[in-house]
């Protein structure tokens, strides 16, 4: 297969002197779903940050699709920011090298907000949202980038049953369209929810088979 969306070779990622990811290799193709599991503190989020380009690799090689969207486990931005849901969702389209949003961008944002049932919240200020609503906003922002590599760090945390179902329906759709998805989860039922998925268990900074 030539359709490689992510190729990580012998990656080492560390914080100051502590090595968290040690000599880890991972390859994900378009249309493939990879679940990442492992104990708390095993380095799942660190791996995702490394793939997203937010942490440098101390060693190894990373090649990945430029059309990547990342949903962090915890949004580190201030909630007390003067913005509404639509404005945050639209920022997902900013990967394209242009400075202004087009009509297409607005339509895409509207469509995705409707899919995730946050269209009614479009003009609400983000500081007044619940935790689960905010998670759906960040999912919508990621999808707005029309990614072909989607990184989701525990996206289901805080989602209600209905939103969970919707997310998996959207993911199946993305996979069918050739998007590669890497998702961190602690829940076996998530893994059963997608057929033909890979499961990567992280332990001691490496993949446990």
């Amino acid at each position, binding site marked *: 297969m030539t359709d490689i969306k992510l190729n990580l070779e012998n990656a080492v990622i560390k914080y100051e002197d502590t090595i968290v990811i040690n000599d880890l290799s991972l390859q994900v193709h378009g249309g493939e779903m990879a679940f990442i599991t492992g104990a708390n503190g095993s380095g799942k989020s660190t791996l995702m940050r490394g793939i997203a380009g937010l942490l440098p690799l101390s060693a190894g090689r990373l090649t990945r699709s430029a059309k990547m969207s990342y949903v962090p486990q915890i949004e580190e931005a*201030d909630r007390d*920011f*003067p*913005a509404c849901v639509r404005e*945050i969702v639209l920022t997902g389209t*900013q990967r394209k090298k242009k*400075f202004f949003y087009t009509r297409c961008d607005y339509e895409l944002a509207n469509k995705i907000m409707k899919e995730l049932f946050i269209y009614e919240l479009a003009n609400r200020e983000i500081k007044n949202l619940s935790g689960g609503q905010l998670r759906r906003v960040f999912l919508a922002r990621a999808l707005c980038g029309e990614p072909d590599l989607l990184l989701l760090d525990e996206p289901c945390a805080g989602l209600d049953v209905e939103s969970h179902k919707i997310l998996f329906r959207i993911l199946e759709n993305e996979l069918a369209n050739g998007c590669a998805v890497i998702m961190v989860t602690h829940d076996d039922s998530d893994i059963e929810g997608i057929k033909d998925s890979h499961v990567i268990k992280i332990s001691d900074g490496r993949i446990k088979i």
Partner: protein
Amino acid sequence: MSDLLALLSYPFVIRALVAGSLISICASVLGVILVLKHYSLIGHGLSEIGFASLSVASALNVPAVLISTPAVIIASFVIMFVSQKFKTAGDIAIAIASSAALALGISISSLTGGTSSTGAYLFGSVLAVSDGDLIFSVILSVVVLTIFIIFYNRLFLITYNENYARSLGINTTFYQLIISVLTALVVVSGMRITGTLLISGVIILPAVTAKNFASRFKTLVIMAGAVSFVAFIAGLVISFVFNIPAGAGVILSNSAILIFVKIFARLKNKK
């Protein structure tokens, strides 16, 4: 009142009025980004460094802008970079750099016998606004305005979440550099009028005031600019009427507006 109007016939008053309003607006617009990114202390740190550089310039007898502009631009970038890399260390870095710079500035100017100019730097003067300063302030505000219009969506995203912007492949360092340079230019040009001690207030106060009634980034930017403009004019009037330095008048009026807005917001919430 007629006394005040009569003042308008003096060219230096007009220059101060125009240059001061433009710089105040630029300062507050940039202040929105600095306040939201929790870089509020930056203006303070930069103005102390600006003061030190002014003392150095006068000791070496070279034009102040030649030394203070590059010094403050570099300091601005370093401070923002350090604040972002090491979250809490940023505050400490600013506090140390600014007091060290202030001490250095005071030492140099007392060694070179320039204590009278020290006062002028610290407190500023509307008399100090030259034709060159006026032209510079016009250019600066055109540049700030243009950058805010063209890069609005980028500035919005980077102010909200720099890491997310980076994950989209946006060159955040470039925008950080732009914001640093503009902040430095505002500090260097503004401190001549308000004094190095008070320019940081002109940057921060209007944004903090506007944050009380603006619920969108865009309205916050516009409102901060408006508040800053009104406060500058009011402050200048106060300074003429009570015969106090212009910078002090501007900060007093800014503070009064902030207190008024806070009280008003409190009363409105109670209802």
